[in-house]
């Protein structure tokens, strides 16, 4: 394929994925308010549109028209850059995620992925998310406010600590698949055990899935690990001084990160786009994408469910849990997996 066509295809795919992702971000906020509302015997948003479905649009408009305050005591360049860093890197990591196998149009094979297959796709996602920490850390520092600084410090300490467990929990899956390539990892999960249990990694690596789940909650600063924005002690944490669209950008980054983490969980542990495929060829091509989205939705729902259920950890409990429990558990899982893979006759 000539490079011009390649760039055109990438631009079109980026536009589609970005649109879908931002819509998903807006509606996961709606879903969260609705589900948590029902869990607490409330209705959640009901006024704007049927079932409050237009609430995200109304919120977006409100954010656009609110007064955009920049407090006088902030360090301005970084105060402005921090929300951009947060949202840009949150949206970038979706680029290497495959949503399905692909479709053949004419003689061109179009993969359902912005890039082509990347050999180190998983590592790239980890790298991009680790850079995203700067958004939060710099927001806290540049606000020149004690609550913001504490929130930023907590967020970066927490993210750096849990990144280790997150990475280690993934190594077991990598050993089984023998590749960093996300497409290969999904392909390694095709087929069934005993004829009916899908060969998903969640059944082979349940301990790794548990570690991933816990570390993912901590990485995205969600309850029960939402200490960086614990409102009872820190006002609003790192985004205390932000208003209007700048605040909305942090919000978008948080939910985009949740979705990316959910996509990774679906790819690595829930068999990616594997699922029953039937019907005419056009349905066959797009059904895997629907399975994939359904798996991500389940993961997002668990996020919201946990938020409606659990209280917040104390900070020392958070660190003790990460370093004294999760890290050894992930290490033990890694060692056991390695031994089993070496000993087991293939």
């Amino acid at each position: 394929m000539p490079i011009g066509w390649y760039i055109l295809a990438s631009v079109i795919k980026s536009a589609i994925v970005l649109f879908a992702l931002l819509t998903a971000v807006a509606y996961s906020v709606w879903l969260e308010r609705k589900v948590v509302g029902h869990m607490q015997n409330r209705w959640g948003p009901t006024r704007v549109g049927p079932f409050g479905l237009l609430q995200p649009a109304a919120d977006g408009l409100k954010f656009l028209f609110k007064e955009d305050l920049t407090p006088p005591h902030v360090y301005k360049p970084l105060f402005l850059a921090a929300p951009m860093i947060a949202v840009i890197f949150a949206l970038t990591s979706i680029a290497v995620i495959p949503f399905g196998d692909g479709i053949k149009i004419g003689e061109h094979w179009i993969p359902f992925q912005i890039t082509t297959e990347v050999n180190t796709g998983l590592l790239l996602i980890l790298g991009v998310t680790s850079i995203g920490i700067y958004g939060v850390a710099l927001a806290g520092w540049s606000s020149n406010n004690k609550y913001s600084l504490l929130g930023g410090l907590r967020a970066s300490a927490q993210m750096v600590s849990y990144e280790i467990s997150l990475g280690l929990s993934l190594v077991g899956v990598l050993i089984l698949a023998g590749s960093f390539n996300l497409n290969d990892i999904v392909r390694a999960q095709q087929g069934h055990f005993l004829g009916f249990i899908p060969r998903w990694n969640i059944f082979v690596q349940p301990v790794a899935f548990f570690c991933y789940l816990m570390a993912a909650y901590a990485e995205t600063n969600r309850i029960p690990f939402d200490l960086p924005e614990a409102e009872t002690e820190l006002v609003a944490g790192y985004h205390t001084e932000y208003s209007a669209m700048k605040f909305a950008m942090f919000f978008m980054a948080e939910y985009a990160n949740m979705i990316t983490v959910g996509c990774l969980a679906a790819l690595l542990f829930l068999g990616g786009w594997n699922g029953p495929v039937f019907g005419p060829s056009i349905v066959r091509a797009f059904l895997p994408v629907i399975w994939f989205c359904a798996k991500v939705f389940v993961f997002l729902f668990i996020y919201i469910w946990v938020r409606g259920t659990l209280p917040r950890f104390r900070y020392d409990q958070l660190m003790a849990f990460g370093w004294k429990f999760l890290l050894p558990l992930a290490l033990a899982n890694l060692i056991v997996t390695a031994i089993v893979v070496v000993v087991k006759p293939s």
Partner: protein
Amino acid sequence: MLSVHLILFLAFGAVAVAGAVNLLVQRHPINSALSLIAVMAALAGEYLLLGAEFVAAVQVIVYAGAIMVLFVFVIMLLNAGEEERTRGSRVAIIFGIPGMLLGSVLVAWVVLTHSGTETVPAGVWPERLSGVPAQSVPGSPHTIGPLLFHQFLLPFEVTSILILIAIMGAVVLASKPTVAGSPPKKVKD
């Protein structure tokens, strides 16, 4: 016509050099740290262009993602302010510029005399890798893994012990001094 590769190479190189210059010029430590991150990211881009995907990813994760976060962390915690401009030390002016020239001449000489030769000594790639499919270009995890854990196992393990010693040293230095003879105070949970 310039190829896309060359354009990207020049762009990343320009970002790296600009970041490095900015690192020196900026007066606020946090701006310097951020320009260092830009340099690291641009270098990762160069590695990607060379086909070393794994090294590029590790560069971003380890340097830009982990080590620089700690740098920024320290700057934030110490609340380091703007640096004062000084005229610089005389030693640096006298020896710095000739030293820099000498260094660049050395690097240029090495590059010019060794360009075109095989960069990897023969026999380094394990022979059983020759049958592995096309994705195992030099620099992919499939080739780096066996190299690290077979050919260069001893240096790899020695490095890890070195890092362990550094961590233990940091813990010892950071721990509160206890009175000699008395047992260390238990921290209540």
